């Protein structure tokens, strides 16, 4: 009997430890596991390194985790939003470090981390400031830089439907970073609108196979970040 179903978001993030590296899925609000992030704020872990494409909106979700002072470093491709000053303030005051990574390099570094590939060469960022200090070499007369696989202690991911073996399907463009992050984290935690029994997801359409997922929690009615931001909510 295998059952990865846990009873609550709080239970799902119980063992995130101070200093952990945490990957957080989402591109904007699509795929952002906001209930898991809020549970992590409540749980209290601090000095986190967060790997995520963005840094959140308003003062909820990822922005709230940052605002609570729990994040010492973000690895990110686009830490700016029109409606949040949380990260900019932390960055300018030197409280949160930023490792800026081109979006495709970020996605591939995460996949590589999950696939046991410690390094790979990419043409992205060659000749730009983001290549500073990086090894480069030529293949077939073209220049590439060496990038390193990225792993994490935990991943917080938003899915649509998960089964108790950890198989996951996603909703539209909410898929984004979920599948590679599930691969790259030691403990991958998925919140889904529905948790079902094994066999209820067709094996042909599984996007993230259960081997990459450690815990699933049902959040039947997830809040939308944009709604909370419009309402001026500040978590907690």
């Amino acid at each position, binding site marked *: 009997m295998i059952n990865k179903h846990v009873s609550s978001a709080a239970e799902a993030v119980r063992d995130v430890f101070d200093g952990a590296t945490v990957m957080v899925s989402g*591109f904007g609000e699509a795929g952002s596991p906001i209930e898991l992030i809020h549970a992590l704020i409540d749980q209290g872990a601090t000095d986190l390194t967060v790997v995520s494409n963005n840094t959140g909106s308003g003062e909820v979700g990822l922005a709230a985790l940052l605002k609570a002072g729990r994040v010492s470093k973000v690895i990110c491709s686009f830490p700016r939003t029109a409606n949040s000053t949380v990260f900019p303030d932390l960055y300018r005051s030197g409280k949160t470090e930023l490792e800026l990574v081109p979006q495709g390099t970020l996605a591939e570094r995460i996949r590589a981390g999950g696939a046991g590939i410690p390094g790979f060469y990419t043409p992205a960022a060659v000749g730009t400031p983001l290549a500073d200090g990086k090894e480069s070499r030529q293949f077939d007369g073209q220049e590439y830089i060496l990038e390193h696989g990225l792993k994490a202690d935990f991943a917080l991911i938003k899915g649509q439907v998960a089964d108790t073996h950890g198989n996951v399907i996603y909703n*539209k*463009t909410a898929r984004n970073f979920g599948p590679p992050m599930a691969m790259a984290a030691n403990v991958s935690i998925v919140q889904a609108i529905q948790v079902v029994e094994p066999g209820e997801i067709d094996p042909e359409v599984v996007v993230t196979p259960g081997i990459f997922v450690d815990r699933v929690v049902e959040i039947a009615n997830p809040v939308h970040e944009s709604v909370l931001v419009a309402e001026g909510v500040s978590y907690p």
Partner: protein
Amino acid sequence: MSEQTQISGWTREEMAKRLAQDIHNGSYVNLGIGIPELVAKYVPEGRTLIYHTENGLLGMGPSPETGSGDPELINAGKRQVTANPGAAFFHHADSFAMIRGGHIDLCVLGAMQVSKNGDLANWSTGAPDAIPAVGGAMDLVAGVKSVYVITQHCTKHGEPKLVESCTFPLTGCKVIDRIYTDLAVIDVTDKGFQLVELSPGIDFDYVQSKTGAEILQIPNT
């Protein structure tokens, strides 16, 4: 009124329309945020393009009708979109495999500066207090088969955006193939900027005067 203000060139809409004429039927296209997005409105009748948005969708359609959208069906600009028949969703590593692997035919981007050898700067002014944010621009310019820039010819302050060499931090080196501005269509060639077409009512000397590097005239044939 000075002579300057009478010279208008193409509007943003006309620039987008002009660019749209150059995209082949069946192309896989990634449109950046801003003026590039306008291109989709002007694709000539009879041509079907398939739009890629790097956050994980091929076959992106127009904005949904008010109230019918899904906050998890968005484009790279984080605005709600739709999915056309024949669309496919995929994750970010697969999406950038499409980009880096040269599978996207054309990408259209805005620019802060383009140099005569095709370097692009469009992500940072390099100002010390700016929050650096790059997104997918560096991957796009490095991987997509053809990269077009669509931009006003000059900045709001009247400074040339087409330059000898970029002073802002680069997005990519030797990556731009063609530039569409309010004044002209200009190719980036081994010899530098090459005029392709002037906006109606704009003469060559005027374009050259607004450009920070030499533009080669269309050769007489």
